[in-house]
């Protein structure tokens, strides 16, 4: 993938969502025609408790420029406690990745409930702007 100037480069962003809240929020956003940039690819998982930090590293390693993990707000997880575990795990992992020198914008986390379609749109737009500002990912990228 040749990374020429900023205009031609299109960021590749992966968003992991939990099935019950954020994915429903994304559905709602689509349903209400809330526009958000197309550079985002959504992967649905059963719960934010399923998020594994190695996905983030693997995605950045294999060519993604940014990753977002988004699940239900603490307290209304469909399975009760999934997002609490997720919160601890990703908080530690974000610090760890930044300790290694990865730009903070590249690995973001959020809570989006099923009804917050506008928040979903806002988070997506902010995410893509952040990644555009930070530019293509060269750290942790698997050299060809």
């Amino acid at each position, binding site marked *: 993938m040749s990374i020429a100037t900023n205009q031609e480069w299109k960021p590749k962003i992966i968003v992991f969502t939990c099935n019950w809240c954020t994915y429903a929020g994304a559905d709602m956003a689509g349903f209400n025609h809330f526009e958000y940039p197309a550079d985002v690819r959504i992967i649905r998982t059963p719960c934010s408790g399923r998020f594994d930090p190695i996905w983030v590293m693997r995605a950045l390693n*294999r*060519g993604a420029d940014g990753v977002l993990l988004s699940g239900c707000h603490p307290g209304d997880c469909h399975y009760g406690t999934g997002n609490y575990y997720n919160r601890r795990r990703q908080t530690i992992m974000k610090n760890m990745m930044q300790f290694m020198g990865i730009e903070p914008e590249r690995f973001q986390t959020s809570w989006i409930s099923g009804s917050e379609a506008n928040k979903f749109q806002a988070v997506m737009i902010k995410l893509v702007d952040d990644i555009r500002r930070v530019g293509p990912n060269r750290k942790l990228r*698997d050299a*060809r």
Partner: protein
Amino acid sequence: MKVLSKTKLEAALNKLSESNEVFVPMQKKAQSGYYPWTSFVSGDEIMLEALNVYQSPKGAVLPQTEKMYQIKQGGMEIKIDKTFEDDHPTIIFGARGCDVKGILAMDEVFLTRGYEDSFYKARRSANTIIANACYEPGSNCFCNAMEVNAVDPAGADVILRDAGEAFVWEVKTEKGEAVTAIIADLLEEKEVQLPQSKPFNQKVDYSGVAEKLKTMFDHPLWDKLSASCINCGMCTFVCPSCYCFDIQVKMWGEEGYRFRAWDSCMFEEYSREAGGGNPRGASKERFRQRFLHKLEFFTERYGTPLCTGCGRCMIVCPTDVNIVRIIDAVKEAEVNA
């Protein structure tokens, strides 16, 4: 005799580096091994006077990871158009006899028995070995018991003999001539006093070990010897003659390459089969495979032991597994034939 004075050493290395990649034993902060001379920066140190360095020069002919061929997949079509045989000229400058023997053992493996590995052959034929004669064995060295002549290492293209303020430059082969021609103007004709070679501290006698090991596969001593081993891969990666490799692939969608990387019989995944079974899954079995390969199997197949007596694995092993002690234990073990 031809002599290269130590004051001209760096000049010689620079001259050789113009047309070759010269691997020199160096200490780079916490690490010591064979690194390209062009990567020398202030704070590094040339280790030609030291007994030896931690990592062996086998990386010059069998790099830790080596691309093999490129794969392009377009739906139904697969194209393998580019292979990465690398034959840029390299020189291993100042390898001790034990390391040279390690490379000779790998020559036997990769270049004989019906198949010539094209990647190894490309690197090895473009490689010249300048050995560094060894007159003062270290406290762990036992290369004399492993068919290695430390003072006159077989298979070396040029032999350096450290005579105090200069190296005697003894040419052995045509490759040696070619390298000598490059730095001919730096060599002088001088008579120098060669040092006396000192006795070995380790008293090792390898004779009869291979034959005896053939009858000791199920001997209880393996449990005792392998008790403390934690199966990391350190001994196999610092060893000058361990050559086992793994073949893996890296693909990005339609494009990628298959590469070769060092592997270690100590890793559990090394001989794990598709169905999940593993003939050598237990820690003891992997431990036994390593030392039987070093001391018996290689001798049976190629006529010379795979261990070259450099003593590196005895130093780095975190649980102090010691191949000399294993050889002694094998010799003393009574076997009901």
